């Protein structure tokens, strides 16, 4: 198959690759670029655990062709902490006990980040609404909601 040259900006770092025209963003991130924090479950837009940010907007990496993300900024969970310093959302997820198996966590935190960008002072209902595209089988969501609200409060 024809491999196409493409440039991606992953967590601020320029990456030049040859990608298959039909390769999905998930495949390029996890197989070609070794990004371990992007997870996948359903392959068809039902679960949200494959979420990454594209120019700060959440997208489902299992449904998006890699070439659609060409020349754009992709943020994965690896891009949030500065060295050993966790992003406030990460820190509150850890401290509130909002992480159990952690498989949904990268998607939850990235989605929450986009939510707080758009809506810096959300209510609990806003958070529920904003995170509704990502499933979590473990936590019952309460502690996730608390963590997001705490992170929002911190940036006030």
């Amino acid at each position: 198959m024809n491999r196409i040259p493409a440039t991606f900006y992953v967590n601020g770092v320029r990456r030049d690759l040859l990608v298959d025209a039909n390769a999905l963003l998930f495949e390029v991130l996890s197989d070609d670029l070794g990004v371990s924090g992007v997870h996948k479950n359903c392959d068809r837009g039902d679960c949200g655990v494959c979420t990454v940010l594209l120019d700060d907007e959440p997208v489902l990496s299992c449904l998006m062709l890699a070439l659609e993300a060409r020349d754009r900024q992709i943020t994965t969970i690896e891009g949030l902490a500065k060295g050993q310093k966790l992003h406030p959302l990460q820190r509150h997820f850890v401290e509130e006990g909002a992480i159990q198996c952690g498989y949904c966590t990268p998607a939850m935190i990235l989605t929450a980040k986009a939510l707080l960008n758009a809506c810096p002072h959300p209510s609990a209902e806003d958070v529920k609404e904003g995170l509704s595209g990502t499933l979590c089988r473990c936590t019952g969501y309460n502690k996730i909601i608390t963590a997001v609200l705490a992170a929002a409060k911190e940036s006030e």
Partner: protein
Amino acid sequence: MLETLNVVGARMPLPEAYEKATGRATYCSTMRLPGMLVGKVLRSPHPHARVAKVDYSKAESLPGVAAVVSGQDVKSKVYTKNVMTYQLPGGEIQDMTLFGDRVRYKGDEVAAVAAVDEPTARRALSLIEVEYEVLPAVFTVDDAIAEDAPVIHDFAPDNTPVSAVPTFCYGDAAKAFEESAVVAGGWYTTSKQIQAGMESAACVADYQHGKLTVWSQSQLPHMAKRMLAHVLDLPEADVRVIQPYAGAGFGAGCDLNAEPIAAVLAMKAGAPVQVWYSRDEDFNNRLTREHVAKVHMRVGLAADGTPKALEAHYWGDAGSYMCKTASGCGVALASNITPYEWEAMDQKLSATYTNHVGGGAMRGFGGMQSSFVRETIVDEAIAQLGMDPIEWRMKHHRNVGGLGWFPSARITSCALEECLTIGAERIGWKEKWNKPQSGTKRRGVGVACMAWLSGAQPMLLEHSNATLKFNADGSATLLVSPGRVGQGVEGALAQIAAEVLTIPYERINVIAGDTDITGFDIGTHASRGVYCIGKAVLAAATEAKEQFLQRAAEKLGLSNDTLVLEDGVISSTADQNCFVTLEEIALGLIYGFEHDCNQIVAHATVEPEDFAPPWQAGFAEVEVDIETGVVEVVKWITVHDIGRAINPSTVEGQLEGATCQGMGFALFEDPVISLSDGYMLTDGFDKYKIMSSVDLPDHEAILVEMGDPSGPFGAKSVGEAGLFLQAPAIANAIYDAVGIRLRDLPMTPERVLAAIQAKEAGV
């Protein structure tokens, strides 16, 4: 009130949470080893057939294919994916053969390939030629027990290898029913719920120099290792199971998935192989919840409410392989024993084969089917006597010293009355219960109770090993072997060790997840982690403390019993200025120059004997729309008798997450099996709904901490306990709202509406 402790009882962040929050945590599905191949399984398109011939020569010669395997590549060994079989002296039914000559459900394993990438692997699967002799198939228990039903396993000609076996009976039930003023009961059905963790089944295998390493989501790694050695005909010493983090367990990790297949592929290919199920493959082939297809139960109460008799027959639909269906029914019967003081009990269980995916285990194993049926029937009988369901439960529950699950088990502690009192107050029971409702939306409240277990004792093999190894700076490594499914037990175990040793939580580094490193443990199931492994950690830490005291006594020239350990310092009770720190002792034992180096390593094996049930009361307030049958949960409260919460945040998290799964079981998680080929039609999250954040009702978990005399620092279990009561309490609340009794799960709007209409029609 329990005494306040330093580390135990604190809301500590989990050690693994940092890796998980930063995307650095490794899961089987995120592993990318150098040279790793993609493994794919060829599955039977027929629900029942004889495999006459498999020819994979074309697949083998496809470029990019490294290995193809089928029956001819493996020794034909009878085994079971249910590795808990090792916990019973005689084992459980073993009825599987890897790539055998018979397939028993649509999806059964026929062959497998390993290739450089997924498209190549899929193409290779399509090139494998298989000749099947198709056999008739059955998909329900009723069809499977019919006279002319096809035989699914030759050793069970009536398809029911476990048939009406009396279990946990005592007293004269017939007489007790005769003496009852009210008798309630009937037939009930429950669903084959799916564990549905966010990571589908995944594993990686590698075979080098005669040694097999398998990275597995198993919750029971040591027993998984033993079964892998058996089915692959390898010495156990040559099999190593490593557990990366698993994207949830909920029982799905109690059974093997594709580990044997990945191993056979890796051995033939000479390269690591990853098998990662797609979502629909996972729904259709991963063993589901133990499936108690139907239950018949009756209870009798005396005119004053005294519990007279409980009689039950639990009938499991095993699907194609027995795995945990019979044991799930057994656990259901056992867990019917503890809550109330029945004068007599008469229970039996059956399990029947059918041609769909087998039943494994899911969180709340057997207890789901026990609590839903028992708690709704009891509610019905109480209502017939015109009594308050909370007062009845307050009065008639068993108590300390009463019968546990098994004849030899006695209850060690019980805070059910506190749970009921707190929950009733919180939900507003007095104001809301039994109030006439009108209009199209009607509200009601309901309650249910249960008593679960803390570990697999005394029925099953139950023991844990814990080892503490001290570094020169006085910190320690703690070796334990639980499942790594997100339950947070590793943090709680570190808290127990830190508490005993009076050192900070961060100074205990937990190492788990490798059978070559950790001591034997039966792993994570039976809500055993904090209680059972915790007891082993407590014993190991106590032993380490003794070693420190001994050494301090030698250094200070005093006797052990005149010394105390506080805040990491051992000092003389007589003279405060006479002290030595743990750090100094640890350093001297490793980098000492007096020819007496002796690193402190403490090890303990603990086989718990006590039966320490966590008790719980669950409260639901619902609103039922009588025009649509839609049930909205307005409020949910779990009040849990935890004994002592080692980490309250983790305990709440377990209960809150379980609440969502319990609501799914109660209201909308509905696996639909095709009656034409046994395939699971609900094979994705678009068809099989699980709770999302917008579906979330107002819910909370409240902990009652009164201590248990046998638990580590008074702790009892939590893992499974949080999802037993949603179904019965919601069903009882629906009765309070609209006066109908529902006997089938899930309570979908269709079922609710049909029952409302039947009631109105006076049927």
